[in-house]
Every structure is written in C-alpha cells, then in structure tokens.
C-alpha cells in the first residue's frame, strides 16, 4: 500500500512539475527525464548484467526513427506504430544480442560500437526514408482524442515511460532474474554451474533493455519534432556510459544521479567555466574512477556507512 502511495506521489510530482516550469527549464527537464530513462535501463544492461554494450543509444534512435517513419511515411496510426516500433527494436536487439553471448568485456563494446556506427551509416544513406544526414523534420504527433500532445504533456509521457521502466527494472532486479544477471556479471562459469542459462539470460537482458531504450526514444522523437543522426551518434553512446559510471554502476539510484548530474552539469557549470565545461566531464570521470569506483552513490554510502559505524561504536 505504501509502495502505491510512493509511486503515485512520485508520478504526480513528476507530472505536475513540467506545468510549473518556465519553458526552457521544462525542456531541459523533459530531456533530462529522457536521459534518466535511458541511464537506468543502460545501468541494468551494463552495471547489473555486466554487458558493456555501446548500442543502447542506437536503440533509442531505432525507436525514434521507426515510430516517425511509420506514422509520417506509412500512415500507421500512433497506437499501432508504438507496438510496431517496439517490436522492430526488439527483433533487432534480439539479433544483436547474440554478439553479447559470444563476446565479453571490451570485445562486446567494440562489436556494439560497430553496430551503432552502422546504424548511423544507414541513417545517413537512407535517402528519403530517413532523411539522410539532415534527418526528418517538421512532422507532428497526430491529435489524440482531439487533443494535441505537446510541451509539458510530452514531459508527462516521458515521466511515465521512465517510471514504468524503473518499476519494471526494480521488480526484475530483485527477483531470481536479477540475481542470475548479477551472478553472470560476477562469474559466468559459476553461474552456469548453479543452473543459470547464461546465454538466455544475457539475450533477455540485452533485448529487454534495448526495447526500453527504444520506448524512451519514441517519446523523445516528438520533443523537437525532429530526429537526426548526430543525436544518436557515438558521442551520446559514450555519454550514457559516463553517466552510469559517474553515478555508480549497478545502482539504479546511481544511474539517476549520474544522468541528472551530467545533464545539469553543462547548464550549471557552463556559466562559470564557459568553454571548459566539457572538460569537466572528463575530469569528473577520471576522478570518480580513481577515487570511488562505485561512483557518487558509493561516496554517499561510504559517508552513511561511516556515520552508522560511528554510532554503533558509540552505543555500547
């Protein structure tokens, strides 16, 4: 019961906030939600299932492009385009995931990086279908029951996708499936000896999280009513990795903190350090890895842990 209230409360706050914000802040807010939604699913893939894939952002792009192409070029209604786009992303992810069963560590990173590159090449060369290097523009979400979904309403849509993703991930993380994923991450051989079907578990993790990315990408496609290749390029794929690492990989909270922080960083830091704000990202990354490999939530846990330990000592 308490859980329902908490989730409902969070949903309410996240949905009311965009209406209270000035437009710029609202736009930053909804784009931040997009990054948070991607970061938490990427955290599951990278931090919990241990797959260092760099294709996550490409799948967001696949979701975004597919839903736009289906609606504007094939004339598919929204309610049908959504499952179709998710389905396509799922099928592609399923195929790519076989790489994840054969490759580990940075080899998987390289293979998925190549996939992400290939995706950009196809977007660039896709002619009228993908709009080429300029992407697709000036389309609009059709009216839903006579109502135009735009501005803060898209923020709400993204908030719902985010909460759904989070709820989904929290559930599976604390189940046998999450344990199986962590077991494979820590030691694949031992996991197999415990009866975990390593291949199947990896494929599922990759496919599920990639579909989640596609879901977030679908909403994102209507933020600015334009999708173009640079947004889904390698730079953002690495940015996602940085978010999860800096926040604390393997922790849902860490992914959220990392995404919020890095998105705000460029707005908070830029006025003070100007052109050097991008460098701040690199410095933060290096410092976090060197000082606290569990990321910013690790620092928090350390502080709380120390305090608790201190209290425990003081009591007896």
């Amino acid at each position, binding site marked *: 019961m308490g859980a329902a209230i908490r989730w409902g409360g969070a949903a309410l706050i996240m949905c009311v906030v965009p209406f209270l914000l000035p437009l710029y802040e609202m736009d930053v807010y909804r784009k931040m939600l997009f990054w948070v939604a991607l970061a938490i699913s990427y955290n599951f893939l990278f931090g919990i299932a241990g797959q*260092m894939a760099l294709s996550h952002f490409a799948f967001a792009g696949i979701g975004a492009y597919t839903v736009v192409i289906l609606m504007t070029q094939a004339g598919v209604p929204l309610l049908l385009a959504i499952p179709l786009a998710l389905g396509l992303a799922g099928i592609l992810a399923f195929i790519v995931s*076989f*790489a994840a069963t*054969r*490759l580990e*560590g*940075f*080899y998987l990173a*390289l*293979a998925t*990086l*190549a*996939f992400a*590159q*290939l995706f950009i*090449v*196809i977007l*660039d*060369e896709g002619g009228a279908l993908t709009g080429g290097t300029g992407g697709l523009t000036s389309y609009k979400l059709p009216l839903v029951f006579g109502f135009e979904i735009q501005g803060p309403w898209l923020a709400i849509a993204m908030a719902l996708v985010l909460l759904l993703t989070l709820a989904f991930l929290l559930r599976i993380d604390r189940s046998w499936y999450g344990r199986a994923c962590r077991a494979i991450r820590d030691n694949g051989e031992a996991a197999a000896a415990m009866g975990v079907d390593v291949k199947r578990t990896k494929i599922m993790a990759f496919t599920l999280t990639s579909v989640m990315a596609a879901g977030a990408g679908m909403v994102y496609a209507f933020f600015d009513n334009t999708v173009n290749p640079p947004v889904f390029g*390698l730079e953002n794929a*690495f940015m996602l*990795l*940085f978010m999860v*690492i800096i926040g604390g990989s393997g922790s849902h909270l860490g992914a959220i903190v990392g995404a919020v922080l890095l998105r705000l960083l460029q707005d908070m830091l830029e006025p003070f350090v100007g*052109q*050097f704000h*991008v*460098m701040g*990202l*690199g*410095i*933060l*990354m*290096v410092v976090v*890895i*060197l000082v606290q*490999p569990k990321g910013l939530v690790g620092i928090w846990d350390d502080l709380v842990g120390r305090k608790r330990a201190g209290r425990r000592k003081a009591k007896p």
Partner: protein
Amino acid sequence: MADLLELLVSATASGCVYGLIALAYLLVLRPTGVINFASGEWAMMGAYAAYVISDAGGLPPILAIPAAALVLAIIGWLTEWLTVRPLVERGAGHLAPILALLGMLVIYHQVVLLSFSEDQYPLDGPFGFGRIEFGLLAGSYQDFFIVGATIAIFIGFWLFFERTVWGRSFEAVAINRRAAALMGINLRMVTALSFAGAAAIAATAGVLDSPRGSVEANMSLPLAVQGFSALIIGGINRVEGALLGGIVLAFAEDLTRRYAPIPSGLALGVTPVLLITFLLVLPNGILRAKEAK
C-alpha cells in the same frame, strides 16, 4: 591495372597508418589487458606537437617526427602514472583503466580544441608530395615514406620482442603478469614503458598521416576506430598482426570505394561490418597466437 597499382600503393600507406595505431593499442593491451580508446587522441596530439615543433620550433619535418614521438611518450607515461597505475595497484578490475582512459580522452580532446584557434594546420612531410615510380608502382614520396617508416618501426619492434631480453620480459608479462613478477620482472616499469611506447607510436602514426590531409582535432575518432578495427582483424596476439590488419582494412575500404557498385557513402559501412564479422567469426584475427614455446 595502373589504377589498381596506384590505389594499392596509397592503400598500403593508409594501412600502415592504421597498423601503427593498432600497434599502439597492442602495446598497451598485451601487458595490461587494457584497450586504450585514447590512442586516436594520441595520434592527433602527436600531429599537433609536430606542427608546433616544426612551425614554431623551426625543426625540419624529418626531425619533427621523433620530437613529437618523444613529447607523446612523456604524455603516455604521465597518463599511465596518473590514471592507470593507481588502479592497477588497488587491484581494480579490467574495466576501470579502460574507463579512466575514456575520461582522459575527453580531457585530451578538449585541451587541444581549446588551445588552438583554427580548425586545421598544415604539416609538411619530409620529402613532399612529388611522384615517384618503381616500375609499375607509382605513388607520392609521402606514401612511400609512410610505408618505409612503418616497416622499419615494425621490424624494430619485432626484433625487440624476439631478440632482446627486454622484449622477452614484455612478452612474459603479456602471458602471465603474476608469473612474470615472480621471475623478477619489474611490472611497473614494463607497464609504464608500454604506455610511453604506445603513445610514441600513435604520435608517429599521426605525424605520418597528417601531411596527406591536415592536422585537426577531428582526426582522432576515425583513427581510434580504424586502429582497433585493424587490431581485431589482424589478431591481438602478434605484433605483425597489427600491420597485417591495418593493410587488410585499408584495402577493403579503398577497393570497396573504388570498385563496389554501391554509393560511396555506404562504403563507410565496410569497417563496422568487417569488425563485427571478425569479432564473431574469427575472434583471434587472421594471425593466430604462436604455439607456446
């Protein structure tokens, strides 16, 4: 036919540049198990260093190459000392140094971007671009110079690894760090030298390549991608694999662009497709590891 031979000379030179970047990856990867995505940045920084040295310092191009390599060797060594050594000593996992180096990549790139006011700078090759012909083989001085210098570097490294005690100790570390340490090999020194050497080699690749185009910050990412693709294609176990992988990759790219009946923009897909294919089908690359002696 003349076209093909001319293309092959130029592609071989490109392949040599890829091979050198692959070698830079390999030098770090073998003893430490770390893939250093910043290798492309090192090449770019090497090119900038050579530009500054020959433009402001007035050094002739042929001397700018070793000078830039030296500058980058110091940067490579510092990188290892600052970001990798603390992690290794703490016993952090394999991934930690890779990620730390990714952070360094961003820092390097931004430092260069903000230190220079124009987007591109010219860099002269030591012999210019005159055309030279060996029978049917024809190409620019710079292309032949790239090939010659690369072969010399690879022979040097091959001899180093095969014939010297130092080289053997690198190999021993590559095979088994703990056993090597027990044998009395100074792991710290080997790792530091690997990074310094890798940075110097990457810088050389950047300096050799730049006269063909120009020196610019954007050159780093393609070099990084092409370099590790070459590495995977050639196989990560042998020094000569890096060169072979580079040449195979360059041939695949250039021959596709020249002869494949597809739009030349789509030919960009060659590298990722080759990379995926090798990773999945031939993960050990073209050259297998030598049988243990």
